[in-house]
């Protein structure tokens, strides 16, 4: 016991040296606290970011794989066999029943919703909003919520559509045909995830989804104003391929897009203009005979599975594979992909923090060891005297370790306090740098490719994931438009706090530093016989 008292006395006696050690430990602790809290923020962001929201998942055809296979087959020919390619792709498209079958195979699926689009042509009494006049500049919207994931997903279609363009004249298929885009939704959830983003009703109500509500549509405010229409009016639109075939539709509501009402690129056809989007129920679309695949320039079915969590998504992906989904299809979650993308700066920062932590620990540890060894060598005489008067070496070593422990713990407390105070501003500052770097990287990519904001769309996480890839009709426009509208909103601030676990880790670090650096001391003490030390002295 008296050695502990002795240690305490020694700590007080050697203020200068101990202050130096304390400062070093405090610096290490502060850096460690910041590093650890950044890492923890990254981890908790990853863990909790998707915890309370549902995750959507989609099954999509791996087009590039199929095309690669098809092109390989026709490699000897000068021209790719477009017909065969088209057919192989068309045959691979999943039907509504297929999608629903997979929904049933996995218990992870909480609910599903789907939508499909078809083109309609103008009639004399019902004209589309002209693209040139209504163009608004594409704005970058940061309002990405999980609700927009559907459109995020379809933004991937722009990618696939371009694949078509490169592959041959198939691009024509991807173009919007017609003047209007009629989209049928299965439920409110589907409407909420409409490709053009959220909207509000300026008058009337949204259509119902059962058969009794067939023929009900809602149109955009711009379209209503352009045609001088109001709720209750009936409009007539024609089939895109057969103008004699007309459809009578009743306007039950007029909506205005909120958030990004990004315009379609010019010259892509009126249907790609969000103002010309007409929303109806899937049942209506079905009753009009427009829901079939590959007819009337309609888009492919956009089928979304809603699962409870990221873990459930993984279960779902496993389940559908087990249920016989061929490897031509991929299961993806725009939510998760996007969320992962939003974590990129934070992850980078966490990696940086880890590196920093390791460097600080390494250098700090080395400095501490060196300092400690010099200290003990300087106090060799003390060791000699203490052992000569019969105090065991282990006790002497314990005293030295205890001294260091006192100093380290005080330094640790100071450093942890400073670190936790500094960690929020410091990590947010670092994170801002990371986000800026990420954004400028994006910007330069966009500049390089000359596609402006489409780069943003790609960055937002759907790239290569395919999503539902509505390759036909309005799909391209929808994809394009949403690609224009969205960029990833990176997690740009963390409220990093030094939690219990961080404190625990810090204490462990402190103990480890003490043990490691005092190990040197113990070795020195154990090596010397008192007689040697005292003989050296005299």
């Amino acid at each position, binding site marked *: 016991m*008296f050695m502990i008292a002795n240690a305490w006395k020694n700590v007080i006696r050697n203020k200068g040296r101990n202050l130096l050690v304390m400062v070093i430990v405090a610096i290490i602790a502060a850096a460690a606290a910041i590093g650890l809290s950044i890492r923890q923020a990254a981890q908790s962001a990853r863990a909790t970011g998707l915890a309370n929201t549902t995750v959507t998942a989609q099954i999509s055809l791996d087009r590039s794989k199929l095309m690669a296979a098809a092109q390989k087959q026709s490699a000897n020919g000068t021209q790719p066999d477009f017909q065969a390619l088209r057919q192989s792709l068309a045959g691979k498209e999943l039907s509504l029943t297929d999608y629903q079958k997979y929904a049933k195979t996995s218990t992870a699926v909480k609910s599903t919703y789907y939508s499909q689009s078809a083109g309609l042509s103008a009639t004399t009494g019902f004209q589309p909003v002209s693209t040139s006049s209504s163009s608004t500049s594409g704005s970058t919207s940061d309002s990405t919520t999980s609700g927009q994931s559907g459109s995020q997903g379809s933004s991937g279609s722009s990618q696939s559509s371009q694949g078509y363009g490169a592959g041959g004249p198939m691009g024509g298929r991807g173009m919007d045909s017609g003047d209007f885009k009629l989209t049928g939704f299965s439920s409110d959830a589907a409407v909420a995830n409409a490709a053009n983003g959220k909207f509000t009703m300026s008058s009337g109500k949204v259509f119902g989804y059962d058969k009794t509500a067939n023929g009900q549509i809602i149109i955009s405010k711009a379209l209503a104003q352009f045609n001088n229409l109001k709720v209750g009016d009936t409009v007539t639109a024609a089939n895109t391929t057969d103008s004699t075939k007309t459809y009578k539709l009743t306007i039950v509501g007029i909506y205005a897009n909120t958030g990004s009402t990004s315009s379609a690129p010019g010259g892509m056809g009126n249907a790609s203009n969000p103002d010309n989007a007409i929303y109806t129920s899937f049942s209506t679309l079905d009753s009009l005979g427009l829901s079939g695949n590959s007819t009337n320039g309609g888009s492919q079915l956009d089928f979304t599975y809603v699962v409870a969590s990221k873990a459930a998504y993984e279960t779902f992906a496993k389940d559908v594979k087990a249920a016989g989904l061929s490897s031509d299809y991929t299961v993806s979650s725009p939510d998760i992909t996007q969320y992962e993308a939003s974590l990129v700066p934070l992850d980078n920062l966490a990696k940086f923090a880890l590196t920093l932590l390791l460097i600080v620990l390494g250098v700090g540890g080395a400095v501490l060891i060196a300092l400690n060894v010099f200290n003990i060598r300087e106090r060799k005489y003390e060791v000699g005297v203490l052992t000569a*008067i*019969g105090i065991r070496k282990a006790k002497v070593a314990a005293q030295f370790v205890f001294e260091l422990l006192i100093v380290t713990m005080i330094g640790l407390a100071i450093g942890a306090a400073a670190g936790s105070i500094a960690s929020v501003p410091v990590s947010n500052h670092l994170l801002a740098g990371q986000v800026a770097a990420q954004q400028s990287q994006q910007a330069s990519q966009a500049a390089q490719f000359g596609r402006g904001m489409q780069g943003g769309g790609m960055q937002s996480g759907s790239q290569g994931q395919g999503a539902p890839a509505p390759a036909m009709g309005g799909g391209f426009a929808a994809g394009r438009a949403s690609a224009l509208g969205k960029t990833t909103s990176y997690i740009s601030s963390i409220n990093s706090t030094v939690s219990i676990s961080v404190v625990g880790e810090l204490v462990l670090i402190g103990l480890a530093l003490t043990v490691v650096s005092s190990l040197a001391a113990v070795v020195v003490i154990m090596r010397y016989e008192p*007689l040697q030390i*005292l003989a050296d*002295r005299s």
Partner: protein
Amino acid sequence: MTTNDINSTHTNDNTDNTPKQGGIETPDNPKAHSEPVLELKDVSYAYTKGGKHVLDHISHRFAAGKAYAITGPSGAGKTTMLSLISGLANPTQGQVLYQGQDLAKLDRYRFRSHDIGVIFQSFNLLPALSAAENIMLSMDASGKRFDAPKRQRALELLAQVHLPEEYANERVLHLSGGEQQRVAIARAFSYDPQILVADEPTGNLDLATQADIMDIFRSLAHDQGRCVIIVTHSPDVASDCDEVFALAPLRRASQRGTAQRGSAQRKSVQRQPTQRRHDTVSAVPRTGQQS
């Protein structure tokens, strides 16, 4: 080899005495004749393995209740012998027995902290600690219980060795040699050890203090039955002790002869004129050494 291993010991009665000698009247103290508390049994010591022997086949018994003086010229191995006695070193050959048990096999840390008080030649005090703290540290280390509070006891001890009380809280670093020596003596007394070993304990002291210290040593031996062993150059100190054990300078086996010994003696004489008489005294048994 064994013929020459005994250095002479002789009581002070056989030598010419200082007046003080008459004061010691109880060499036949009952404890003195009991089992020796410490015994050197054919002890040799070399600092390096196979190196020169500093001590060569020394045997001697130290009984409780007696004060012993170990004398000898420089380099005779006095301090080395003290290291062996105090358990700081183990003999290369032979045994040091404490109460009949081999010290090499005992817990020498406990022995040092508990059973033996050593006053080192260089004092070996902790310079950063105050005089009182140094003494209290040894009391703590001994693990013994004391009647009075440790600090009070430390102050009493310091008073006994004539160190003014205001020095008690002074760092040892700031004390003079003589003052440090007194602190070292007080420290050795502090935990009331069975054996007290002192290496030149009075070298830095004035005569009055020296006499007081010697009184304390004698009183410890005769009144409290401790074994006191004093390494000294001083004939006065030696004559104050009950027995003088003279260590001869050790000659290397290859360099025997009177010339060699003569030069060694001359050296020590030059260094310390008062030593001459002792050398002559101890020269008697030395003639029989190293045949």
